[in-house]
């Protein structure tokens, strides 16, 4: 939980260096392709982006399996962030693919192109991941259902590619599966830029994980200092909750001392609306002094 920020700077610098190298190779080192000319250089962006994006989806499925096996909410968070990043990469793939299609075939969209079409289907499927999470309120069930979705969708990715490829004639420049057929400068450029995009994905993933962890640690500390008052209730969100019961561990348990009144003590109510107005509560409670004392003890 504390280790996400470590070595992030080194990783970022390495990523930036590799990325610069990949772009430099793509623009200045790789030879001009005979048929497509300059446009073919989008290959060094589009294909690595697509490969990294799909691997991210599959990795998110593996993380989801880990989540269901261990019930550790951090695995759910990892899977969530991986799918989030892959969705962003996927938008990049669709846009760069459209540009490439327009440049080489004259149309923004080609249905006869199986890889692009299967990519669109996968993208549409994963686009429902956030709405699914958003419409389940219970955080534990949200995490569990999201993991089930991620596993099924991760297995769907390769099957879908097979199915769509069967259905269409080959139009795509068959370069991505066969780096061995490329001339050496092109293959080198491609591999370096694949490495660059992989590093970019990992860096962004770790950055997002660090940010989320920092936010959760901050909230836990705030809660420890000032009780439930500072932390708004969770409400509707698609984000995974890292600490499901933060209130139990970070406070002296007031439930251990028996509440004398028939009402529950105000400290046991997590809703913040009970906090700022002790006056109407004490007027309703049969023993107002005890109620205010237990409240002062919490804060």
């Amino acid at each position, binding site marked *: 939980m504390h280790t996400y920020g470590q070595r992030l700077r080194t990783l970022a610098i390495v990523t930036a260096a590799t990325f610069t190298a990949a772009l430099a190779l793509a623009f200045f080192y790789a030879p001009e392709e005979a048929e497509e000319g300059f446009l073919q250089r989008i290959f060094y962006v589009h294909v690595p982006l697509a490969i990294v994006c799909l691997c991210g989806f599959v990795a998110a499925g593996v993380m989801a399996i880990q989540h*269901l096996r261990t019930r550790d909410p951090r695995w759910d968070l990892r899977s969530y962030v991986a799918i989030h990043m892959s969705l962003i990469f996927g938008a990049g793939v669709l846009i760069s693919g459209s540009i490439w299609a327009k440049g080489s075939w004259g149309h923004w969209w080609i249905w006869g192109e199986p890889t692009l079409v299967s990519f669109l*289907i996968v993208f549409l499927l994963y686009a429902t991941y956030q709405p699914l999470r958003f419409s389940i*309120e219970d955080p534990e069930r949200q995490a569990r259902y999201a993991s*089930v979705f991620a596993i*099924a969708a991760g*297995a*769907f990715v390769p099957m879908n590619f097979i*199915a*769509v490829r069967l259905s269409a004639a080959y139009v795509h420049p068959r370069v991505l599966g066969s780096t061995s057929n490329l001339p050496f400068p092109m293959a080198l450029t491609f591999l370096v830029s694949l490495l660059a995009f992989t590093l970019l994905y990992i860096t962004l993933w770790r950055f997002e994980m660090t940010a989320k962890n920092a936010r959760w640690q901050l909230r836990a500390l705030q809660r420890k200092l000032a009780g439930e008052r500072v932390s708004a209730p969770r409400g509707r969100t698609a984000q995974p909750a890292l600490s499901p019961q933060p209130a139990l561990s970070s406070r002296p348990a007031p439930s251990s001392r028996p509440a004398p009144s028939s009402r529950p003590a105000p400290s046991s109510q997590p809703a913040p609306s009970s906090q700022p107005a002790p006056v109407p509560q004490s007027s309703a409670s049969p023993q107002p002094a005890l109620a205010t004392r237990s409240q002062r003890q919490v804060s």
Partner: protein
Amino acid sequence: MSEAAPPGERLAAGLQPGVPSVAAEHRGEAEAPERAGSSERPRQRLHSTALTLLRKELLLELRTLESVPGMILFAVSTFVIFHFALNTGSVEGDLAAGILWVTILFAALLGVNRLFVADADQGGFDALLLAPCDSSALLLAKVAALTIYLVLLELVTVPAFALFLLGSSLGHALPDLLVVLVLADLGLAVIGSFVAALAVRTRARDLIGPLIALPLLVPIAIGASSASSPLLTAASHGGPGVRWLLLLGVYDLVFGLIAYAVFDFLLED
């Protein structure tokens, strides 16, 4: 529905706050010898539980008539819509296969949306969790029920399609078409049951369900329409392409295994 409560409801209604602990104890007792004993008994019990649940499902449908008549009506109306939208009285080949499969797909989604609603709203899930049985039986029962619904749907829809829209006669191609229909029904039922279980306890289930189901059903649509388009042409020679049937079969199998593996996690609260 009103005069006879569904079995799930009856079970849930019988469980008062004191009773679940007894049921849970009973469940623990029942599972212990199951693990220690031979593997024959649990499988038998899975079968019989699934059969019981399937009977409950069909009884419920027979009494409420919520899914199948709606699906059939929807499909026939869609053919009428297609007739006027395309402004044609007879279609063939790719177009015919497309119309047939789009209609069956969307009609199936109607059934999928309703599949788990009674269990989620009226305590069927809770009753199943309290009962000493494997929850995979529920998946099996739902897949079987949805397959039966789809077969009933197609018993009406395919003749109606041949009557209303199809240019060529269906007779010679019927055996091949039946194979395609059965394979596609199994796939629709497996994916539909899985997605329905995933979506039924979300807030926007009528929206989430079809949104998740449609991309997952694309391979089924590809396989089924490609396999049946040569069957729906006038000068038909040769059956459906073997690779399409293979695609459908493999997809059914793989997704069936995935759904079987992860279904338990959808039920456990």
